[in-house]
């Protein structure tokens, strides 16, 4: 009888310790949550960024948007056929414009330098892809946006690396 009571006592102690451990484990799992918040903020910034970049008016031809330049770049195979902006074709001008006027003044100064890449992925047999930022392996938050053109869909991608 006495031995049985002692075993019951040990069982109660083990139960209490287990409940305590479960709380500690539960807390550790919940600590992962801030990543989801960060992800949400990055997705919000990402979509706004892509949309705002594409609609921004450039000085080329008195007011073409970046979207117009990207479409022209995708639809014409030879640089000499493309829109010429200050002695650069639409592809080269769009890349320089986005890099110098937008990203260098925003994400690069907001603490995202070396942790994002902005890619304009042209359809096959079209222009060479535009890549701004760093391309890395590993976990990333992808944000994609498609622009329909006569040469096929252009995919604008913004990746945030963790």
């Amino acid at each position, binding site marked *: 009888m006495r031995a049985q009571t002692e075993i019951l006592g040990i069982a109660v102690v083990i139960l*209490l*310790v287990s409940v305590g451990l479960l709380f*500690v484990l539960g807390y550790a799992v919940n600590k992962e949550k801030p990543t989801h918040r960060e992800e949400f903020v990055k997705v919000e910034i990402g979509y706004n960024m892509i949309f705002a970049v594409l609609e921004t008016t450039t000085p080329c031809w008195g007011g073409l948007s970046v979207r117009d330049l990207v479409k022209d770049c995708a639809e014409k195979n030879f640089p000499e056929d493309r829109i010429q902006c200050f002695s650069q074709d639409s592809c080269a001008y769009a890349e320089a414009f986005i890099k110098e006027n937008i990203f260098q003044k925003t994400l690069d100064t907001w603490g995202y330098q070396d942790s994002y890449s902005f890619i304009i992925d042209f359809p096959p047999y079209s222009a060479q892809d535009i890549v701004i930022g760093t391309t890395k392996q590993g976990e990333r938050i992808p944000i994609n946006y498609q622009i329909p053109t006569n040469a096929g869909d252009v995919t604008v991608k913004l990746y945030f690396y963790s």
Partner: protein
Amino acid sequence: MTETIGVLIVFFFILVIGFKFYATFQALSLKERADEVFVQQSIQTAQMVSELPELQCTFGTEEAVVEKGSCIDLIKLQKAQELFMNNNDYYSDIFLFSKISVNVTYPDKSQLADFYSAYNMDAADWPIELYSRIPATGYKAKIPTKYPLLLMDAVTYAPQTKYYFGVLTVEVYQPK
């Protein structure tokens, strides 16, 4: 008898330690939940600002209005400063303790001479502060969030509309 008292002491000791652990973790998780709500507030405020009819870019007629997302009409922005100031009670219920401002990233502020004369503004007016309510008793934390957006200028080169690249900065304060 002594043995029973010893077992009871150990039992209650473990119970008290367990309860202390539980209380500590609960307090920590409550604090985290409060922080989460605080971060969400900063995101919601930024989304609300860019979608306010007082600021949003719109096209079309009265019967069929088309709204452009993540876009602020510069003429509305200029008028909104006064509107927000005159209706501070209304907006403070929406934006609580925060500071909201809009800045232009492209073109450079020094290259907007035509815009300044059309809008009767100056380069020194940037960033345009829309709303500011900082807790009088001080604050525990402040979360600044920057959101890229478009700034629509339909006046300077009318009938042509130009879009500038802008940044909406929302700073949310957590009062003490």
